């Protein structure tokens, strides 16, 4: 499943700020929501890179900016060495044949007035891939690939359940034979029994068509299951990136460690040290200075609030943005819940 070494997508210093304006007619910018603030990562051909983080950490924005569904503030995104951000309108349209997205909400991401056949067939027409009978044949083939039936092409989205709609969304993404699929929380709106069906489907399709995935999700168990490598985001930055197994067995960033320990495990006999982080995630409008995690970090040093940590490789492609890198001996101390420290954030 893992990639063959060749890099398909490389993102360099990706930044996306949303302006915060004041005034009604004469709007002036008074600040910026720093949704994504300097990301560096790459995805190899055929691999799955998981992007995890809590709500508001910028993971969805990252996916959308790479596809230029939103324009980046700065940075580069090299798709097979071509910078997506420098493409003209027509070039971008052609480039989108290579990159598709699957959205989170299967209820709002399908046009209710189009039949399933039209929804899946539309990208085929836009990219001049198939028309008429050929298009119909291709749509039916795609429906079968995602586990639906050819006769479903004449139905409307409301006639389908959540899991089936997500399959339609996947078929639409597959229609143009893309190389990269950005899956933005593709299973979080689904019930667990249906979730497993869709995850299995995504893995089968990857094997069959040699797809590369950027898999964005907040559910760590799901990300661990499907990813080869995982990047953990916090407030617009990647704090740690490593092979999936390495990240879970040997987390180096205090945020990753806390995040992993917070996931409830479906095994009543498993008792773990739980690290309960104080407080809430700070606002990305005014992120903390230095390391953005220092306000909630249980190992924070005075220098953490001043120096922005560097994102360094500590060996075997395990990247981490924490110079303190506390080790496990300190864990027992950290497991103590500190209610006094849970500062208000408003």
């Amino acid at each position, binding site marked *: 499943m893992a990639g063959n070494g060749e890099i398909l997508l490389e993102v360099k210093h990706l930044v996306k700020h949303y302006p915060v304006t004041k005034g009604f007619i004469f709007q002036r910018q008074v600040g910026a929501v720093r949704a994504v603030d300097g990301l560096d990562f790459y995805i190899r051909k055929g691999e799955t890179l998981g992007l995890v983080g809590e709500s508001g950490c910028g993971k969805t924005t990252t996916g959308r900016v790479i596809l230029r569904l939103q324009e980046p503030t700065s940075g580069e995104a090299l798709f097979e060495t071509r910078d997506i951000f420098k493409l003209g309108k027509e070039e971008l349209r052609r480039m989108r044949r290579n990159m598709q997205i699957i959205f989170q909400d299967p209820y709002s991401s399908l046009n209710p007035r189009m039949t399933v056949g039209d929804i899946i067939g539309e990208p085929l027409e836009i990219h001049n891939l198939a028309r008429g009978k050929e298009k119909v044949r291709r749509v039916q083939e795609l429906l079968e690939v995602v586990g639906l039936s050819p006769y479903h092409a004449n139905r409307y989205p409301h006639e389908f359940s959540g899991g089936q709609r997500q399959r339609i969304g996947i078929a639409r993404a597959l229609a143009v034979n893309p190389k990269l699929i950005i899956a933005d929380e593709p299973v979080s709106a689904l019930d*667990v029994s249906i979730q497993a069906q869709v995850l299995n489907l995504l893995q089968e399709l990857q094997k069959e068509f040699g797809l590369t995935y950027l898999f964005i999700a907040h559910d*760590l168990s799901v990300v661990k299951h499907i990813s080869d490598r995982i990047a953990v985001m916090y407030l617009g930055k990647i704090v740690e990136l490593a092979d999936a197994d390495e990240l879970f067995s040997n987390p180096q960033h205090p945020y990753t460690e806390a995040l992993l320990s917070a996931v409830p*495990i*479906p095994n009543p006999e498993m008792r773990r040290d739980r690290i309960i*982080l104080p407080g809430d995630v700070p606002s990305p409008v005014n992120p903390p200075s230095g390391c953005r995690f220092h306000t909630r970090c249980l190992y924070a040093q005075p220098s953490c609030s001043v120096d922005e940590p560097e994102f360094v490789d500590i060996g075997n492609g395990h990247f981490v943005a924490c110079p303190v890198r506390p080790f496990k001996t300190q864990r027992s101390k950290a497991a103590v819940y500190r209610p006094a420290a849970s500062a208000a954030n408003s």
Partner: protein
Amino acid sequence: MAEPLLSVRNLKTYFYTDEGVVRAVDGMAYDLHKGETLGIVGESGSGKSVHALSIMRLIPSPPGKIVDGEILFEGRNLLKLSDEQMRRIRGNRIAMVFQEPMTSLNPVLTIGEQIAEAVILHQRLDKRAAWERAIEMLERVKIPSARQRVKDYPHQFSGGMRQRVMIAMALSCNPSVLLADEPTTALDVTIQAQILELMRELQREFGTAIIMITHNLGVVAEMCDNVVVMYAGRPVEETDVKRTFHDPRHPYTWGLLHSVPKLYERSERLIPIEGQPPSLVDLPPGCSFAPRCPFAMEVCTQVDPPNVPIEAGHTARCYLYTDQATEKDKEAATAAGLAASARSRGV
């Protein structure tokens, strides 16, 4: 064992809609003891929330109606009480925390006013004492600088803090039963961990019995003593938390456990439950899980299975454990089920 605090017996809540009768809850039954945490697990549409609203007698009627059953709370049948008597219990002796902390608080009242309202109504405290109580409750749920924050409006709080406020409000009258309907589903995992820890602490302190309604098996494993698994409005399996996870007997429970990815185990493929949950308007005859069940026998598609005691404190609604199916059929079904799971594992 002592008398149960809350005992639900054969509860049936139906909704009469234009499309037909929706049997949202159809024969729910369990006992809840003092200080216990009972998990109600199921997927969307399994009737877990409707069951909670039935206990609170908050089912909108029409179209909903509790058509049968008993809800015995401290020996009294809640379904027989007058509205006035029920009002004295609701929010006072039995309180509820809802899933959406964003929509279940009133946006035009301060946090303090909302907590105090319940206290004034139920505990007959005067305004000043109720206000002090509100501050005290906010401190209990670890809202920093509670004395200032009590004057804030809900929009000034984050999601996790709003859920703390909901818990403060629910516990302000010191209820003996807390119904928590997906209390952490809308929250991030680090905030979820905070809220679960808080609920455990408060339970130790107040001895409240909690009914934890969730679809998250991890939350069940960490919080609950006993578990009822629901499917299509019916309880299909009930036992303690250890047996739920290590010795599940109903094929649905088994399927549910296998369809979630495990954080600390490596598996190439998940074993999903094939198919879709049935429509509650048009339930299949016999066991409602039969169309998706890899172990289904002929009898399963004909008559509803009985609730079978497996051993003390463990029941499952499945023909695999009855005499109504022949040994030969059961063996064949087991073989078919195991073969199906091996297939989906890709073996």
